[in-house]
């Protein structure tokens, strides 16, 4: 089963390696991982999606991660009401007006943005939940997808309490 975890860590070199190294050493598969700045300059938020057989297995890895000195807080977002989003950029071959029109239509239906157009290709940007992104990729599969870059999901819990105070 997939679990989404948010980890607040000290913004220091090597911390992401520590976290990811620990997870993989414990034989968990990291589905996606990303890290970014937060509202505090010296805090980084790592968002990971891991595969674990059950909650007990997941807790083992959470407890191991919590032992890392630079880890400030870990929360299993999957257990909370939350909003999860992922960003995707897709470069599609569009070397005829017909194909280009089709792709623009598909992008509109998905409320995606065309962020770059060339004579032979377009780049589409979409944010949303993973299944929505998957549906877009599926639709674009009818055309020639040249390249995909996606972030993996980031998530925030609903309500006023930030995870650092949980």
């Amino acid at each position, binding site marked *: 089963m997939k679990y989404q975890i948010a980890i607040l860590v000290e913004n220091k070199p*090597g911390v992401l390696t520590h976290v990811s*190294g620990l997870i993989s050493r414990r034989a968990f598969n990291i589905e996606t991982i990303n890290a970014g700045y937060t509202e505090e300059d010296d805090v980084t938020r790592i968002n990971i999606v891991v595969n674990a057989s059950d909650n007990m297995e997941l807790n083992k890895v959470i*407890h191991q991660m919590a032992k890392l000195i*630079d880890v400030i*807080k870990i929360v299993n977002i999957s257990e909370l009401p939350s909003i999860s989003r992922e960003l995707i950029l897709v470069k599609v071959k569009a070397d005829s007006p017909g194909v280009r029109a089709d792709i623009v239509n598909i992008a509109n239906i998905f409320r995606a943005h065309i962020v770059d157009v060339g004579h032979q290709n377009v780049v589409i940007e979409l944010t949303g939940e993973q299944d929505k992104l998957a549906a877009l990729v599926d639709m674009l599969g009818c055309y020639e997808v040249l390249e995909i870059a996606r972030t993996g999901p980031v998530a925030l819990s609903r309500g006023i309490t930030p995870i650092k105070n949980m």
Partner: protein
Amino acid sequence: MRINGARAVIESLKNEDVEIVFGYPGGAVLTLYDEIYKTKFPHILTKHEQGAVHAADGYARATGKIGVCIATSGPGATNLITGIATANIDSIPLVCITGQVATPFIGRDSFQEADVCGITSPITKHNYLVRDVRELSRVLKEAFFIAGTGRPGPVVIDIAKDVFAAEVDYEYPAEVNLRGYSGKYIGNEKDLDKAVKLLKQAEKPLVFVGGGVVSSGTYISFREFINMLGIPVTSTLMGLGCVEPEQKGNLGMAGMHGSYAANMAIMQCDLLIGIGVRFDDRVTGIMKEFAPKAKIIQFDIDYAEVNKNVVSYLSVIGDLRWSLPLLCKKTKIYAEKIKKNSAQWIDYVIKMHKNNPFSYKKSDNHIMAQEIIEKTAELTENDTIAVTDVGQHQMWAAQFFKVYGPRHFITSGGLGTMGYGLPAAMGAKIGCPDKAVVLFTGDGSIMMNCQEMATLADYDINVKIIVIHNHVLGMVTQWQRMFYGKRYSQSILNSKADIVKIAQAMGIKGIRIDEKTDLIKILKQTLAQQGPALIDVNVPDTEDVLPMVPGGKRLDQMIMESEAANK
């Protein structure tokens, strides 16, 4: 105070009350060694960096203080790896200072460069790469705090060469500020109340004590708890010494080479109270069938230990310095009830242990390894520190050496590091100069770091080395005998190296015992003499450590001495 980074390291060591460091100089730490020279900071020069880190580890285990070692960059630092991993798995507090190439050279595959933080990340509690001299004092303060608090462990500080030379206005921080780590773990009292309730209901309780009681220094509370309730108690290898040898209901070590009574009691008890144990696979046998009839209560400082190997019914997470005194206080009023409930069980277990003690085949002609350990125990004071290497002799020492207190049995438990014993014994003796230190080692183990005999000689460190010489890799041949059709692949030593002459060549006394009649006389003489010495004792090569729980078997599926004899 305006000083250079190297001096800042020395000042910080002084601020942390570090008495001595173990190390080996090299290019990247030359500025630091220059300050060691200038300040006359106490330093033991080992013959190999692995010797330095094991010595710091032995010092830490014997004293309860933080062991410190120094190595240069690249190969110096990587030579520490085995020792850091050894300390990490046994939760031993170390601060390892390594030199790194100068900051402009980092990441360029420079001469003697290795990514020490990357390499040591999985085997340290924490590590630092210091590239700015202004961070140095904070990092040192944090490193000592992290190494010694909570669940102790090794911390590596990798310092770039130019940082040692750079000048800084030195001020040592008064306190540390780490958002993700407090070092204090006070648990939930309600969990303790639940534990007391389970104890009140138990008819067959058993206490299982581990290294956590040693490292937290709570053996007095622990003994109070045991004495008050009279509950039978068994120990892990790391927990030896927490219970007095003569304590009624002390079943000795449990696990693969544990006592019959300890293993059977684990299989039959209805409540198992694990205190500072991590349920390592060497101690559980097949994990799924460990203590199958028992509710397991786990007292531990580390949340990550809960349900890691065996599933606990209840966990009391927190520092044993908090939980054990409180447990004593809360159980005191129920002591009589608990004793009464478990009276029959206690009698049964004690009788079982009396009828099945650790034993071995005596021989009129041969000196038996177990006999050497028994006799050494008899000939030494109760506060003697026994250090071991790894292998059969280690298990026999655990079975037959009477350990009267915590920090008196020093051994590589989790990692099983051959070559650990000699430098660790050296560190233990330096930490505890008033106590006798005896090393039990094998002819395989001693060769792994035998160069440290020269360090014993150079500093006149009074360690007595007893080599239990069976001409084979004992534990390897035992497994090959039992599970590999007696195919002794690469395990027959019969080395032409003369260990006695090696000792003598290194500058310490070396004596060989071949005749049984000489054993006690020479042991007695040598133990009484001042200065380091090695005794090389020939023993038979086909002895097995028994009982034994074969891998993948339950604790009650032990091979006993009688069964092995019939094979």
